[in-house]
């Protein structure tokens, strides 16, 4: 058995590869993440960002390579990881006929982490959905649905957040809630991997910057003193010229 939990922290991934239909969606990815770090992953469509997040979430088994998240092995100790990771995917994973409150309670219940009394209401309140907590999701706008998924993210305390294009359908206010929540998450020692196209918002949140192109990690370094224009230039250079 892999060492459990708190003694080993961080994310370590070595030589990760995933083959889909005769091509490599991801190959030879090495990645290290320390507590409090937020890695923002940039890359063109189809570069493997989503695949990487899904592997870290234990949704997809890697074809090659190995990894450890919070001391638990990516392949052998999936259940342990599932208690410590939260993913925000393209799909909302919401049931249209249920209310936001019911959706959140269900999501928490099936993971075996029953939220504290009032936690669901508080999370919904925080994303500004307190008033529609008992409406059916079907009647809500797509922006509101996105906020529900944000509330779901806030419901549990986990080590690692995996956010796939989190800014899609999020308005200004909700983006601010996300940024604040991420800040708290970092301060607790939480880690995050964010995949995005959105340079403006993504850059702001990052403590580390990475570029994925054609399934390979071609850049991974601390943000340091890098400015956004400098990074954009670097990105353009790497993904068009040397990304092959």
């Amino acid at each position, binding site marked *: 058995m892999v060492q459990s939990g708190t003694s080993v922290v961080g994310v370590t991934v070595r030589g990760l590869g995933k083959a889909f239909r005769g091509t490599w969606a991801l190959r030879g990815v090495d990645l290290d993440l320390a507590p409090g770090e937020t890695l923002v992953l940039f890359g063109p469509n189809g570069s493997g960002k989503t695949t990487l997040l*899904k592997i870290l*979430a*234990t*949704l*997809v*088994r890697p074809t090659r390579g190995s990894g450890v998240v919070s001391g638990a092995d990516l392949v052998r100790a*999936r*259940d*342990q990881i*599932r*208690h410590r990771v939260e*993913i925000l*995917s*393209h*799909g*909302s*994973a*919401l*049931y*249209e*006929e*249920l209310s936001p409150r*019911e959706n959140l309670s*269900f*999501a928490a*219940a*099936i*993971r*075996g982490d029953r939220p504290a009394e009032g936690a669901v209401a508080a999370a919904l309140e925080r994303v500004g959905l307190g008033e529609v907590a008992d409406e*059916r999701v079907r009647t809500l706008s797509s922006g509101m649905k996105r906020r529900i998924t944000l509330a779901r993210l806030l419901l549990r305390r986990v080590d690692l957040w995996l956010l796939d294009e989190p800014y899609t359908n999020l308005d200004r206010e909700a983006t601010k809630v996300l940024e604040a929540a991420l800040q708290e998450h970092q301060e607790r020692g939480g880690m995050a991997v964010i995949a995005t196209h959105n340079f403006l918002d993504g850059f702001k949140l990052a403590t580390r910057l990475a570029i994925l192109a054609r399934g390979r990690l071609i850049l991974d370094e601390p943000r340091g003193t890098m400015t956004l224009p400098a990074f954009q230039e670097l990105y353009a250079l790497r993904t068009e010229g040397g990304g092959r």
Partner: protein
Amino acid sequence: MNFLALAAEILRKDLRIEARSREGVNTLLFFSALLVFLFRFALGPTEAQVRQGAPGLLWFAFILTGLWGMARAFQVERENDCLEALRLVPGDLGGLYLGKVVGGCCMMVATELAIVVMFGLFFHLDLWPAGVRLVPVLILGTVGFVAIGTLFAAITAHLKAREVLLPLLLLPLVIPVLLPASRLTELALAGESLGAEPHWLRLLLVFDLVFLVLGYLTFPFVMED
């Protein structure tokens, strides 16, 4: 997570969704009524003919509505990628299977009862005496069907050709369940005791049990990426 608790959560959620989305229930009822109406042409006018052909046709109707119900149970999960969240449930995914099977059985038996009642109305049959025996037969037959159906609905849920593939895989596999079920239905409708041919009952029970166990054991493999 405890697998019974997970099963209960899934079941509660599914029944709640079913209760709220009227379209599903309404369409099923309408479709059932239509089927019973069509029986009239298939069976012929005399009561003897009706009695003779009824068990087979009833189960034919149950299968048609059942196939639809099975596909539907996972359509809800597919809609917003809910399946992905379910796959991330830590622990025994067998609970998910159990919840889906119980929910599917509830839906299917309810539909079957509606069909049987309409059948009795349209063909002037007094079904009350038969009912006591018919209900357990319906339940037993349905359990076997749903045990396999849930598994294949999960398999085909994210395939493009699911509408074709689900019946294609499911129907040959449920034949051993359908044979005893329709035979027992025949007995029940004729007002005879099910104990008259106990081997059918035993056979059906064994099939149900084996398919449930196999489904429970293999379901987690189906749910993996």
